[in-house]
């Protein structure tokens, strides 16, 4: 995937003498020290990241960590103090105001925390806004607005004013307004934070649905770690203006970079973070018609397992063979692998979260993980699942007790 958005050593300092603050920053001074010495606030501090086309990139941090400033640096609503922002390879900090407007009109749009709808415009006029600014003809932009409203399920509300809509509906309008110009990049600044928990969950699901259809590059700011885990292809953990860790949700949870990240990962439902694909063992299966009882026994010894999955010619799992069953077949004089097959075995798609597998673990049988075509991809032992649910990091008591 090509890189869509790249930030290089991006910094933003609020105050009268950003130069002095930047020098201190280069010297490794902390945000607090700089504030004490120069009176300047370092909001974003030497941030770098690459965002690939079509990915949802979450920027996660507590309030005051600089995430809202960071996202505004990407479309220059806030002028960065130094660094580079490259959109499709073009350094947008080096171009003039006209080009920035052009980029905002065509390449990126924004969704706001408190919706920021125009209260004096109807829902349709709100959605049309970007196209109107771009100079589209009324008929053309009206049709485009209705199409986009249909995408978020609000076409019946086109002629209402935003004030008569609920919060969730208003944010759909905000989303439609951002999508109407068909930008490659969507900047979402705490887009769902102002919504009630249930509505927020609906909106998250809907965004994922929508993303499957429209495939935008999304930069999503949030202070909700669960939201970050649920929506993000990758998460950037931000603290005091710095990005302390970037990675896919599973990596953030399983290998947190520092105590700050650990704090977030502690109370999350790990079963909802890890997918089957991320923790399965890729043990090659036996193949019907190719493997014999002999080779099966040898393979079991090699992998030091007492059961293996058996697949057919198309790679679809047909059953499990146990070491015990093989022994019995040999004694009974049935030389074919098919006769030793046990066919009641659990399977799961590789995209499933391990929280979906708890009931299957009860059988104690290995679970076959299937890829999108239904072919065998790997195996999950119930014990693997349970192990993954416990954090690798020590709990707070023991950690604090250490010197």
């Amino acid at each position, binding site marked *: 995937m090509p890189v869509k958005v790249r930030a290089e050593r991006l910094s933003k300092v609020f105050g009268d003498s950003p130069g002095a603050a930047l020098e201190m920053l280069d010297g490794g001074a902390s945000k607090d020290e700089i504030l004490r010495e120069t009176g300047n606030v370092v909001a974003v501090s030497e941030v770098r990241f690459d965002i690939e086309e079509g990915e949802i990139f979450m920027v996660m941090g507590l309030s005051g960590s600089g995430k809202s400033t960071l996202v*505004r640096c990407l*479309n220059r*609503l806030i002028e960065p103090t130094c660094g580079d922002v490259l959109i499709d390879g073009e350094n947008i900090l080096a171009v003039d105001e006209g080009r920035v*407007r*052009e*980029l*905002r*009109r*065509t390449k990126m*749009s*924004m969704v*706001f*925390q*408190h919706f*920021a*709808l*125009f*209260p*004096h415009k*109807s829902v349709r006029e709100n959605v049309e*806004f*970007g196209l*109107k*600014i*771009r100079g589209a003809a009324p008929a053309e932009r009206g049709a485009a607005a209705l199409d986009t409203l*249909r*995408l*978020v*399920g*609000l076409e*019946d*509300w*086109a*002629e*209402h*004013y935003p*004030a*008569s*809509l*609920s919060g*969730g*509906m208003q944010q*759909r309008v905000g989303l439609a*307004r951002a999508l109407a*110009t068909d930008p490659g990049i969507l*900047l979402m600044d705490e887009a769902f934070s102002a919504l009630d928990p249930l509505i927020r969950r*609906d909106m998250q699901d*809907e965004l994922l649905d*929508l993303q499957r259809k429209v495939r935008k590059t999304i930069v999503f700011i949030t202070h909700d770690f669960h939201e970050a885990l649920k929506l993000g292809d990758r998460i950037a953990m931000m603290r005091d203006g710095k990005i302390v860790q970037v990675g896919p949700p599973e990596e953030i949870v399983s290998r947190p970079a520092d105590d700050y990240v650990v704090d977030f990962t502690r109370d999350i439902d790990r079963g909802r973070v890890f997918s089957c694909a991320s923790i399965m063992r890729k043990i090659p299966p036996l193949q019907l018609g190719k493997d014999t009882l002999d080779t099966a026994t040898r393979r079991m010894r090699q992998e030091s397992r007492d059961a293996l999955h058996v697949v057919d010619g198309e790679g679809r799992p047909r059953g499990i063979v146990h070491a015990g069953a093989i022994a019995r077949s040999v004694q009974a004089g049935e030389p074919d692998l098919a006769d030793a097959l046990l066919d009641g075995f659990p399977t799961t798609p590789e995209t499933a979260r391990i929280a979906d597998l708890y009931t299957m673990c009860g059988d104690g049988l290995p679970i076959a993980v299937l890829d999108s075509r239904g072919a065998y991809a790997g195996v999950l032992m119930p014990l693997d699942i349970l192990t993954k649910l416990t954090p690798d990091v020590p709990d707070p008591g023991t950690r604090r007790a250490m010197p």
Partner: protein
Amino acid sequence: MSDPSDLFLLPLEDWIQTAVEWVVANWRPVFQAIRWPISYTLDGLEAALQGIPYLVVVIAMFAIAWRTAGWRTGVFSIAAMLFIGFLGLWDKAMTTLAIVFTAVVFCVIVGLPLGIMAGRSDRFWSWLRPVLDVMQTTPSFVYLVPVVMLFGIGTVPGVIATIIFSLPPLIRLTNLGLRQVRTEVVEAGLAFGSTRWQLLKEVQFPLALPTIMAGLNQTLLLAMVMSVIAAMIGAEGLGLTVLRGIGRLDVGLAAIGGISIALLAIILDRVTQALGQARRDGPPVERRSWLAMTLGSRPRPGGTPATGENDSSRGPSERFSKGGG
């Protein structure tokens, strides 16, 4: 030795006198140029208001008041206008209206751009603000002196004094209105690539309009007040009636002039206040410009959406459903 001036007398009085004389002598064309459009507007308006039969004016006032502020104000305006007529002050009231409208027109022409500039530039506002403070704390009589020096006496100088006196609230409230627009909404405008002009036209100005209309309302009422004071430098109209009443100790004459001014002020206040209150909640409303509303014309064709009545009875929360898209 009882007074500092015994030690030293600052001849500021003479300086100002000299300065003003110099300005009057050398800048005459400038003041004539300022005077000309005002005089032209005033004469036109006055001629129109005096020329139109009183019944037409009364009906027009009723229509405007009714469409903007409701039928109560409409009925009140009929009663008030007829009452002024029965007092024998119709012509003078029309002159006062002409003075006030002219002053308001020029206040808008000057004040709106200044207010917009102030609202968008902190530096300009920090420069303009003390000027407005001085303008608003200066007693209204004090305006008359330089105006008489520079423009002479009569109705047109009276209008000029009225413009200067009633300008500040419009500038202040335009500035305030623009600054009150939520940062996030302004950001939204910019994030979609608006130019400064598009941002002003599409976002800032419409959202500031209620506040700007409140400023216009204040300006109009101040113009009403000043039109009376301006009678002292020869402005005609109801102010002159009051002034004459006071001069001759004719309490009755002063009182009917005062009552007429108050009645006009009430009508204009109600109408301009109503113009400032925009409705943006509830079901889809008929879309009209407020100019069309004032003139009582029909809504634009196609302005009323098809989803109209049915949806308006249902609350938004009931209607909320997961998007099918």
